[in-house]
């Protein structure tokens, strides 16, 4: 805004007017109300953020040991399943050798044993225990 907008009929603007303590006090109050409103909103936001950080801080500590434990369990399970597959491969290889041996010159019962297993409950028990 420029000086030309001044309407001099409104009064004399060549000197500062008297200060108004009543108005000053009200304005100060209004300013403080605004300050408190802004501060209270920030405060609420901080509280919300704090609860988020608090959650992380609380569970963050537990997350490390839980993660390590989960990794260890996963490693054990994985290792076990790998070993089982390896064992299975070894068993299959052994069975193939038995069958070859039986066919090459073994008796009829030896061939049968090689294909369907020996005529014994021990075989079934051993299979069940393995599983």
């Amino acid at each position: 805004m420029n000086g030309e907008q001044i309407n001099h009929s409104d009064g004399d603007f060549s000197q500062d007017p008297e200060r108004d303590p009543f108005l000053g006090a009200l304005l100060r109050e209004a300013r403080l109300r605004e300050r408190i409103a802004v501060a209270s909103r920030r405060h609420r936001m901080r509280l919300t953020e704090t609860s988020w950080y608090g959650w992380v801080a609380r569970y963050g500590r537990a997350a490390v040991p839980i993660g390590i434990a989960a990794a260890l369990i996963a490693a054990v399970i994985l290792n076990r399943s790998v070993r089982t597959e390896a064992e299975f491969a070894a068993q299959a290889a052994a069975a193939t050798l038995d069958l070859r041996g039986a066919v090459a010159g073994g008796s009829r019962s030896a061939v049968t044993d090689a294909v369907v297993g020996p005529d014994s409950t021990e075989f079934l028990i051993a299979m069940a225990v393995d599983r």
Partner: protein
Amino acid sequence: MREPTREPATDAEETALVDRATRGDPAAFDALVRRHLPGALVAAERLLGDRADAEDLVQDAFLRALDRLPLLDPNRPFGPWFFTLLRNLGINQLRAKRVRHTEPELLDAASPDALPDEEMERAEVRERFDAALAALTPRQREIVMLFEVEGWKGAEIAEHLGLTPENVRWHLHQAKKSLRVSLSTLRDEGTL
């Protein structure tokens, strides 16, 4: 015949405000601030003897109150609870500063339960004043604040804002004219 009691209505309204503020409604908290700020300022200034310190104390007390609202017994009025909080904070502040003082007098003049109707009216009038202030242009608002609150001279404001001193005084005049309506109500009621 006794006039239908306004006090219980006021209390009910305040209880509702406290309830809403506790549940995170900023407007309700602002209304509580508007209602209790004038008394709180008087009390804080009386306690600390300094306007700026009093403003800081009042702000601190309201923020503490915001934190502790969930702890407030719904059957207890907000005012006395808040003023006790304010007083304790003020005393702690004085102790921390190691200022020698006599035991502060009770906050009788500022006690909100003494004159709830007045508190209510003051809050309403201040709400109108805030609205009038918000209706000023940003420049008028800044000028009136710098002049009346900060105590700057017209020439200093002019230099700060790149205006002529006459222009500043004219803006000041316009701002005061705009505020006059709400101010006249306040002056008539003598509620400052």
